[in-house]
């Protein structure tokens, strides 16, 4: 597991105009063609080599989470959003315990009485419930189980509002 990303972090990365254009245009969809970077280059008025170099720099700087496939959650089995109200002096230990489960793929500390929020994904609903029950048993703390009822908008990015 990577070290936790502490907030706040250093100054944000400043992308070049080409990098901005690539993120704006292709954060939702890449061309599914044999030479996608050439197609992207044509769309933004650059060369294929410039596009590949620009993406490689974004990747190296940690600005691109990935160039590729994002799976849809419910197709992979069952998932839920879970929350816990953890006493401050136990937060590090409980957070580490929660993160240690391979079924937990996101775990965030938030500013609230419910200060630990995590997503549990497993092949079946029964396995999701087993993970939540194990976390409750091992911590003695209640877990809120908030499975998705209905999506109104999926995460497909948003306008980046450059300035």
């Amino acid at each position, binding site marked *: 597991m990577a070290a*936790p990303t502490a*907030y*706040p*972090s250093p100054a*944000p*990365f400043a*992308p070049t105009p080409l990098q901005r254009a690539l993120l704006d245009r292709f*954060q939702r*969809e*890449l061309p*599914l063609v*044999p*030479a*996608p*970077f050439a197609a992207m280059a044509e769309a933004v008025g650059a060369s294929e080599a410039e596009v590949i170099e620009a*993406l*490689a720099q*974004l*990747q190296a*700087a940690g*600005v691109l*989470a*990935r*160039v*590729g*496939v*994002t*799976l*849809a*959650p419910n197709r*992979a*089995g069952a998932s839920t*959003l879970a*929350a816990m109200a953890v006493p401050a002096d136990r937060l590090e230990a409980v*957070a580490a315990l929660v*993160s240690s489960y391979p079924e937990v*793929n996101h*775990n*965030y500390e*938030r500013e*609230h009485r*419910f*200060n630990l*929020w995590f997503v549990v*994904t497993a*092949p079946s609903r029964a396995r999701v419930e087993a993970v939540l029950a194990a976390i409750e048993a091992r911590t003695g703390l*209640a877990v809120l*189980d*908030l499975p*998705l*009822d*209905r*999506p*109104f*908008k999926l*995460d*497909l*990015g*948003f306008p980046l509002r450059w*300035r």
Partner: protein
Amino acid sequence: MLDPLDRRILVASQDGLPLAVEPFAELARRLGIPQAELLERLRRLRERGAIRRIAAVPNHYRLGFLANAMTVWDVDDREVSRLGREVGALPFVSHCYRRPRRLPHWPYDLFAMVHGRSRAETEAFRARIVEVLGPACRGGDVLYSRRILKKTGLRLAPEPPERAEEGPCSA
């Protein structure tokens, strides 16, 4: 359902595409299938919703979106479907979901993730959501992210889960 080749394609592509002139050709070679078949299957998986997107996915935090908040709302059951769609259509909302209330601990049924460059910007976005929800909203709260403790993309195991749970199988 995913067939075994679909699964192999998802497992092979979930770490990202190689930044090469012909990334799909390289992936197809690794999978031992023709490039045309790989592209066709990726297209179908996306159409069927097994793949949410094939894209250049930014890390918003590194781009200066520092005030990331989960806004939560207690919206009248009769109005939440219509209003959820309206909130989801706001440009600064990246995800919007309905989830169950857990009374008395958790009265909120509508979740909208909002990304601002500053708390002032995020608070202005919240005010806009309040306007959209109107009198059907009985209350709300905001939960700013303080730390990302773990974040890995959704992963698909190399073996189908049914099999993996049954233990080793001699094929």
